[in-house]
């Protein structure tokens, strides 16, 4: 363990974090101004995004270089793994907030508005003709009449796609461990392609919702929870698919060995996480 050439690698000085902070500053100030109605905010925001992308490329480039250069021992690798695990845990908790909102709306606020529990008078005095049911855009019928997004059709296809992609990424992983590079790169490519197809279909579904079902972000609590949950999920799929693409490019360049492939695994975990969230979504948002 305490071999001189097996030290824990501690990098010395990096300008990437501060670049990232500057990027975040522009991003946040830009979005805020934009939301407040200042059009210039949009460009500031895009500037921030550009700086952040630049930072990500540079930072990850440095890390990849160090990794390929053999600077990371097993302990560093473990740090990365644990870091990724806890990062995913934080993401899970982020989704918990929105699932919490969904459960609260379905089991608490909607029934209460309909007079359940100790809210008899809520219904009688304020929302007299409202009968609680799910889905609902509330007693005020916010957003007007709408149709529900059913569980079959596109959502079901998307479920199959994501689950398949989870399988393909696992096959790719096994291939990586077995040193079968060809299978690895094929199945990895398949995975991110499936990911992008998912995103595309989700886009089709949104267009359908907006144009034909009158189901919008503004469609009361149903629309809010539907679009926020699927939207944040879709964002994660997009990010995951981009990361898979990068990993695939690295595979093509010959990176990763059966023993040393943290980045691959991290992205695979992330992909499984995205998949699991989708299953939760499918069950609670589309199906039940």
């Amino acid at each position, binding site marked *: 363990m305490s071999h001189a050439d097996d030290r824990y690698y501690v990098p*010395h000085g990096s300008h990437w974090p501060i670049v990232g902070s500057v990027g975040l500053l522009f991003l946040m100030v830009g979005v*805020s101004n934009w939301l407040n109605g200042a059009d210039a905010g949009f460009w500031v925001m895009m500037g921030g995004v550009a700086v952040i992308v630049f930072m990500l490329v540079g930072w990850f480039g440095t890390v990849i270089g160090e990794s390929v250069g053999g600077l990371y021992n097993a302990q560093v690798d473990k740090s990365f793994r644990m870091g990724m695990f806890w990062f995913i845990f*934080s993401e899970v*908790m982020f989704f918990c907030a929105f699932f919490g909102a969904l459960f609260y709306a379905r089991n608490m606020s909607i029934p209460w508005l309909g007079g359940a529990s100790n809210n008899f008078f809520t219904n009688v005095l304020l929302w007299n003709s409202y009968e609680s049911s799910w889905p609902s855009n509330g007693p005020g019928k916010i957003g007007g009449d709408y149709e529900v997004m059913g569980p079959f059709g596109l959502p079901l296809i998307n479920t199959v796609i994501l689950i398949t992609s989870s399988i393909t990424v696992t096959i790719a992983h096994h291939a990586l461990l077995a040193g079968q590079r060809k299978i690895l790169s094929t199945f990895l490519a398949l995975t991110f392609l499936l990911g992008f197809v998912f995103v595309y279909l989700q886009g089709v579904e949104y267009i359908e919702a907006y144009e034909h079902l009158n189901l919008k*972000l503004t469609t009361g609590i149903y629309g809010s929870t539907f679009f926020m949950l699927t939207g944040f999920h879709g964002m994660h799929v997009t990010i995951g698919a981009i990361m898979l693409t990068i990993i695939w490019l690295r595979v093509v360049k010959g990176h990763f060995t059966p023993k040393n492939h943290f980045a691959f695994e991290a992205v695979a975990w992330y992909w499984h996480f995205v998949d699991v969230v989708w299953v939760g979504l499918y069950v609670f948002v589309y199906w039940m």
Partner: protein
Amino acid sequence: MADHGPAKGFTRWLYTTNHKDIGTMYLIFSLTMFFIGGSMALVIRSELMTPGLQFVHPEFFNQMTTMHALIMVFGAVMPAFVGLANWMIPLMIGAPDMALPRMNNWSFWILPVAFGILLSTLLMDGGAPAGGWTMYPPLVLQTGDAFPFLIFSVHLMGISSIMGAINIIVSILNMRAPDMWLLKMPMFVWTWLITAYLLIAVMPVLAGAVTMLLTDQFFGTSFFLAAGGGDPVMFQHIFWFFGHPEVYIMILPAFGVVSEIIPTFARKPLFGHDSMVYAASCIAFLSFIVWAHHMFTVGMPLSGQLFFMFATMLIAVPTGVKIFNWVATMWGGAMTFETPMLFSLAFVFLFTIGGFSGVMLAIVPADIQYHDTYFVVAHFHYVLVPGSIFGLFAACYYWLPKWTGHMYNETAGKLHFWASTIFVNLTFFPMHFLGLAGMPRRIPDYSTQFADFNTMASIGAIGFGLSQLIFVYVLLTVKKGAKATDRVWEAPRGLEWTVPSPAPYHTFDTPPVKRVTQESFQ
């Protein structure tokens, strides 16, 4: 590599990946925020000194209350503990640095951005956020231009905390010296492990909550709108699911600090180390299921109220275990009363008083009377100021010689302690009476019957604020103090006392050997 010193110039601080540099930056940043947040408290207290409006308009008063709390909670207390974690955890577990040094730098450098944005709202149209630090809708949606800035600065604080917490957990779990198995870890490390877990679990929930505020405001969602099937109270549930663990995030590391200091100055091992660990875990677990005790007046069904009351009361049990164990640590010891010990003792006393008022608040019918009065303000300042803040002072005095290589001025330290302790009680004790007599919180002006105690509290606050200047004096003069030995105190335990004072820029490049670990830690 071992003698590789810090870089020169200001880029040292911008680019650094060294846990000690980053710890120092965190500590200085949080002290600055403490002074800014404290100045806002002084604005509040000045206005409340006598009845009638003298200095500020009601809207500005509310901005001060809101900003004071946000800055103290997210800018002063949390970063200060992260700073301590950065400095001490690698030293205590025998690691060369934090596990993810570059990310460590980023965690820190997001904070100035976040608070820069937050403070800049003071200059905006409509002023700074004024809806209270709890940001309840629909009121918070009436914020002016500051609104999106508030939301995004909270996001940034969250990102920073999560990255910091990930780093801490990974360092603790992966970087310990070969022989330091989990139950041998010092209490400070343990409490931080649990705190970091809480942070990762709840900061994203806060992020989700404020995101929903943002979309309700700008994108027409109905999360907190009854007409659309949502409920304003839903926000309160999500917020407090974060908010309650948050208060333990602010106190658990202080528990850890006190658990290090009392044994040192009692010259006796910490009583019941393992049960302290279990107690802290228990507190963390319970903290997830008590959130609605902040909401006993919102109209929850009876069953909910009963559940949250019982769960809340239960927290007194593991917290009690901690208090009793500290007392048992002192019992039979051979105590001396240097400044860190004084602050720790005051912590045990005054935190307990704050805890008692917490238990009173948990009793629902009584809370219906206490809720949103100064009784609550008294409660949480007792656990936060002589709680968290005293814990921080204790830690600073305890480790300052290790950080700087010099002993601080003990007389000034003691003076700081006594002044702080007297004034903190003068400030916050009368608030109990104010609350019981019926003074609501978050008001800029009050009925004349509340005048006397408010004047007392305001005088106390000014005194407490001035006392903090002594602390600054101590910090500024520490380099003039006598050279500190490696062990600094007579009988401290832990690996941090095996390295020189000041701790060299790099420590434990090779993990400490077994012998050292076991000797210095039992």
